[in-house]
């Protein structure tokens, strides 16, 4: 395991331990102010986890709304419902054996459901084969990062590479060589050729090709792989486009989630966005109404 990967795991486990420790303190602390500050730890740790998952906009929303808004409200609630001179801001809890057992069983059930209920496939899958005529049949698989995770929109911080593997199954495969390229989806819906092999590098090992490209070095947009073979005598097969479903996108290069989220808010989520804004207004008015001093005639 390379150092950067080790470091990533270390950061994740430190942050996860902080989140768990904070959660335990929220659940068990005798002092309610300590509980509130433990909740602060949990919220910041969860924000750090979002950052590890490359969900940048959610990190900002989490810190602004949860830490800056909700936690302040909770601390207000604590301070307004205790006499400020109380030395002992007690935080009664009644953890009987029943509640402990119930929670332990719940946790075990959830974990069992994750581990045995569904297999989270992380192996790269052969998505499509391509016929290269005389050179034979090629099998393409695409994956990301160290080769274990399938292609996902985020990956981890380290998964900056998108890889394509080509295995040729023919005698002719030993004499032919493969060329890799990328096509980019234009706004008009057409596919635009990128200069061949410029953003793509590849290596050959026993007739098995591995091509990769760095996401960060590509412009924002949607991309698709393509492959062709060149024989010894220079004849080229037509480009074979690599896509699981004809006409779909293989992978996208996006710098963060913010642009996509903004578009989704103004597009498919417009109604929900407006409803939430009305709900926030209603909650504001309702909270002010509930909390005001009652005027008795």
């Amino acid at each position, binding site marked *: 395991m390379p150092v950067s990967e080790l470091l990533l795991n270390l950061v994740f486990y430190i942050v*996860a331990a902080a989140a768990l420790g904070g959660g335990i303190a929220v659940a068990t602390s005798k002092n309610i102010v300590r509980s509130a500050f433990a909740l602060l730890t949990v919220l910041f740790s969860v924000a750090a986890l979002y950052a590890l998952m490359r969900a940048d906009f*959610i990190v900002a929303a989490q810190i602004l709304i949860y830490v800056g808004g909700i936690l302040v*409200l*909770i601390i207000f609630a604590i301070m307004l419902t205790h006499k400020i001179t109380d030395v002992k801001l007690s935080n*009664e809890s009644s953890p009987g054996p029943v509640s402990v057992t119930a929670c332990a069983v719940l946790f075990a059930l959830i974990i069992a459901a994750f581990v045995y209920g569904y297999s989270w496939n*992380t192996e790269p899958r052969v998505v499509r084969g391509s016929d290269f005529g005389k050179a034979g049949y090629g099998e393409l698989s695409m994956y990301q990062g160290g080769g274990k995770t399938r292609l996902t929109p*985020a990956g981890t911080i380290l998964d900056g590479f998108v890889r394509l593997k080509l295995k040729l199954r023919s005698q002719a495969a030993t004499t032919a060589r493969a060329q890799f390229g990328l096509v980019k989806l234009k706004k008009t819906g057409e596919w635009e050729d990128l200069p061949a092999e410029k953003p793509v590098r590849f290596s050959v090992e026993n007739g098995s090709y591995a091509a990769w490209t760095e996401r960060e070095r590509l412009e924002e947009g949607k991309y698709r792989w393509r492959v062709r073979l060149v024989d010894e005598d220079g004849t080229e097969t037509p480009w074979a486009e690599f896509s699981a479903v004809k006409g779909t996108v293989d992978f996208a290069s996006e710098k963060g989630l913010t642009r996509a*989220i903004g578009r989704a808010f103004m597009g498919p989520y417009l109604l929900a966005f407006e409803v939430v804004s009305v709900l926030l207004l209603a909650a504001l008015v309702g909270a002010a109404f509930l909390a005001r001093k009652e005027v008795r005639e």
Partner: protein
Amino acid sequence: MIDFAFSRHPLENILVLSAALFVLGIFTIITRRNAVSVLMGVELVLNAANLNFVGFSQYVPGAGIHGSMFSIFVILLAAAEAAVALAIIIGMYQNFGRVDVDKAELMKE
């Protein structure tokens, strides 16, 4: 042999962590008497759910952005919920002088 490394199995790690946070939140909700503490437990549960949403959105191929959108809506609803809960808790404190959820039995009568 199970590989626990985050870099190899990011989704599973996130799911297990969020399950732990969820259970801790449930534990807080069912054992605490103070209404503010119960509110904190609810926040823990919502954060666990949000972790799941973002995890699935980012690590399931083809999931798109919808999980992240849901997590933003959950955060917004949590803000509204916390504001209303604060108002209710302060009302409780004005009426009963304390904010224990098992003492608030006004609706029984």
